[in-house]
């Protein structure tokens, strides 16, 4: 991810297993940094994208990949995390959410304000945006 920021969308697809969260964080940080986000925003982006993907990993351990897309548009970086969900009749919950600590969409909202979570059948889409500059 050393290429300069260009119009368009950067996308990575990863299997829904916790061991790949590191890769997703590196990807999100690299795109956010290249797009011109401050280091504080880059750090928050790592947390937010990781939380969105971890939520998917908590809910299933099989099925299609999680897709993470970042689209810099010169004013912000739009982030979309798509989780296709469990295949019909397959998979199992891996771990329940921690009730004592805010996480997932709630934490993303605390970091970046507006976050839109859309559930469509088994699939879940989480959208938020990273500010550019200071």
């Amino acid at each position, binding site marked *: 991810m050393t290429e300069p920021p260009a119009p368009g969308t950067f996308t990575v697809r990863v299997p829904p297993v916790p061991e790949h969260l590191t890769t997703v964080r590196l990807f999100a940080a690299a795109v956010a940094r290249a797009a011109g986000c401050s280091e504080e925003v880059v750090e928050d982006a790592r947390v937010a994208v990781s939380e969105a993907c971890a939520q998917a990993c908590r809910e299933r351990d099989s099925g299609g990949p999680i897709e993470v897309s970042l689209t810099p548009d010169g004013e912000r970086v739009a982030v979309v995390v798509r989780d296709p969900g469990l295949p019909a009749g397959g998979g199992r919950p891996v771990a329940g959410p921690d009730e004592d600590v*805010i996480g997932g969409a709630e934490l993303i909202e605390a970091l970046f304000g507006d976050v839109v979570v859309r559930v469509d059948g088994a699939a879940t889409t989480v959208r938020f945006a990273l500010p550019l500059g200071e």
Partner: protein
Amino acid sequence: MGGEIDLATAPRLREEIVRLVDAGRDRLLVDLEGVEFMDSTGLGVLVAGLKHTRERGGDLALVCRRPQVLRLLAITGLDGVLAVHADASEASAPPPVSPG
């Protein structure tokens, strides 16, 4: 501690805390100085550890100066729940993983 504490690695921290507390070490100081990243799963493990030690009359505190972790603690409101020290010598009350 070092590396990243997330959904993949938090279970190891959880097991270590339970092991120490079950061994009678209920005053724990968790040094996060080498931790490069932590998510809500890691925070959940620390809060569960705090509860676990307090049930035994002990306590759990953190050593941390890393901005990402401090910011996460502040955003989640856990900076008012978990004691955070800038270095281990400052946190003299609960000695590092010593028997309580």
